[in-house]
């Protein structure tokens, strides 16, 4: 028997081992460069700060305690509100778009391509594009001034409006695609049945289409909420120094403030919110599946 045959036979007789052999390289990489760093970060969040960056050994709850300070409590609340607001606006804008695409006939593929396009383009470049439009001498202000609507340019950047618009602009495709996917699967026989039984269009929509698109709505909401919660670039580029979110707080602790333990704690506050959202999503999804949808 050649070495090759012996090698193959060895794994053929041990299917479990074969599976783990395939998993091992990727798994190792993920554990060493993803899980271990997260565990280290959790450890850092309970240690006292070292003024030169990094940590001193010891145990403290002070880093988490600081989140009860109104200043930081406000940042966490504001971030959550932004994420919720962004999700709500995306749902409001995204549902009609998904609905129109699902009924878009021969334009369907082209419209999907249009939704996918920003989904793939550099997030940084897209935030810059928003900034380019919104800054004091930007196109929006200039057009309004030329049209005589306003006398002088008004400040749009560094306002909650700019950040929220940026977030929606950034994450809208994440909402449209899952809703489209569930609308596309919708069984037309059900709508016809409703129609035959005398339901007017509005009633058909609210009693058939909307409930059946719920899995897409829930998935889309999660896909928007999570990155909005963790966003850093949007508020950094469009919010200036005024609109600080948890992401900016974390970045600040690891750069200029040099308070790694506090930055780690802030990251874990963010991770907790994300995990909360994922858990909620899984609950809702499992409940949906249990109902036999």
């Amino acid at each position: 028997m050649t070495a090759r045959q012996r090698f193959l036979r060895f794994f053929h007789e041990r299917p479990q081992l074969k599976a783990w052999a395939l998993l091992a390289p990727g798994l190792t990489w993920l554990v060493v460069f993803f899980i271990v760093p997260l565990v280290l970060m959790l450890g850092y969040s309970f240690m006292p700060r070292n003024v030169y960056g990094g940590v001193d050994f010891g145990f403290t709850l002070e880093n988490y305690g600081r989140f009860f300070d109104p200043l930081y409590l406000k940042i966490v609340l504001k971030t959550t509100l932004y994420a919720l607001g962004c999700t709500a606006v995306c749902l409001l804008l995204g549902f009609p778009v998904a609905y129109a695409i699902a009924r878009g006939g021969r334009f369907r593929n082209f419209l999907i391509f249009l939704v996918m396009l920003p989904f793939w383009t550099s997030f940084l470049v897209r935030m810059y594009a928003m900034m380019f439009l919104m800054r004091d001498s930007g196109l929006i202000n200039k057009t309004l001034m030329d049209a005589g609507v306003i006398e002088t340019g008004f400040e749009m950047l560094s306002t909650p409006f700019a950040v929220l618009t940026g977030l929606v602009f950034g994450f809208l495709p994440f909402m449209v695609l899952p809703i489209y996917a569930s609308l596309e699967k919708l069984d037309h026989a059900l709508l016809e049945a409703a129609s035959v039984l005398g339901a007017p269009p509005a009633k058909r929509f609210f009693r058939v289409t909307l409930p059946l698109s719920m899995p897409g709505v829930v998935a889309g909401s999660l896909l928007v909420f999570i990155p909005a919660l963790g966003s850093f670039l949007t508020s950094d580029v469009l919010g200036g120094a005024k609109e600080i979110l948890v992401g900016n707080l974390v970045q600040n602790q690891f750069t200029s403030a040099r308070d790694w333990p506090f930055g780690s704690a802030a990251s874990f506050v963010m991770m907790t919110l994300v995990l909360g959202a994922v858990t909620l999503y899984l609950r809702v999804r499992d409940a949906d599946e249990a109902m036999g949808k």
Partner: protein
Amino acid sequence: MKNQRLPYWLTLGVAIVFLFMHAPLMVLVLFSFNDSKFSMEWKGFTTKWYERLAERQDILDGLYSSLTVGLASTVIATVLGTLMALALARHEFRGRRAMEALLYVPIVTPEIVVGISLLILFMAAHFPLGLGSITVAHVAFNISFVAVVVHARLQGMDRNLEEAAMILGADEITAFFRVTVPQLWPGILSGAMLAFTMSFDDYVITSFVAGTDAATLPMVVYTMVKKNIEPSVNAISTVVLIATTILIFVADRAGREKPLTAEKAPVE
């Protein structure tokens, strides 16, 4: 219902949302050709901002770094991710659910958390920061995406060809390289393209693990955006935009290409 037209107000509303999604980038591209340094007024067509780009060493270096990191991390992430997908799609093993959950951790973790936690690891382990550490980080967040894409492809794949090859005398290794890989190729390719694009576009994670000497293209762009000095920012943004659009277009094509046996013959 298919034949009913959408109400006009809905069509109009949807058109406005599409405009919102695309107009900002179109304006950006348009003004990268504007012959004026400060004003938003159209002063004529020019390509001088693009010529300026080619003269800037930091941009050329950034582009070189981004391509190097992108290629290296894509190759590693694609190989590791594909192997994981094969294990998940074709083998029953204990700890499988935990494994699937683990794969989703990088997908839901906010970028900034990935960036700082890796920075903590690298500093604690005295791992030198630079193109090497950036590559390691990019592989870490890309393995999952490749695995998920390839896994989806594997689930729709027909195993008959592989079995036929083995019956005809190929051993498992030959069957894998001569039958499975060619069949799976479109999935692997679209996973790889996705990985490359994410690596090429990433700013947040990269900025934390880059150290002081290395700068990828998005990092150079970020500095330019923050300083906001001249329309070169529009030009470099346009270049990045076009590069990623081409990549995605290619990836999309590759992903759609039908495998050798896309349609299963109905077996009775």
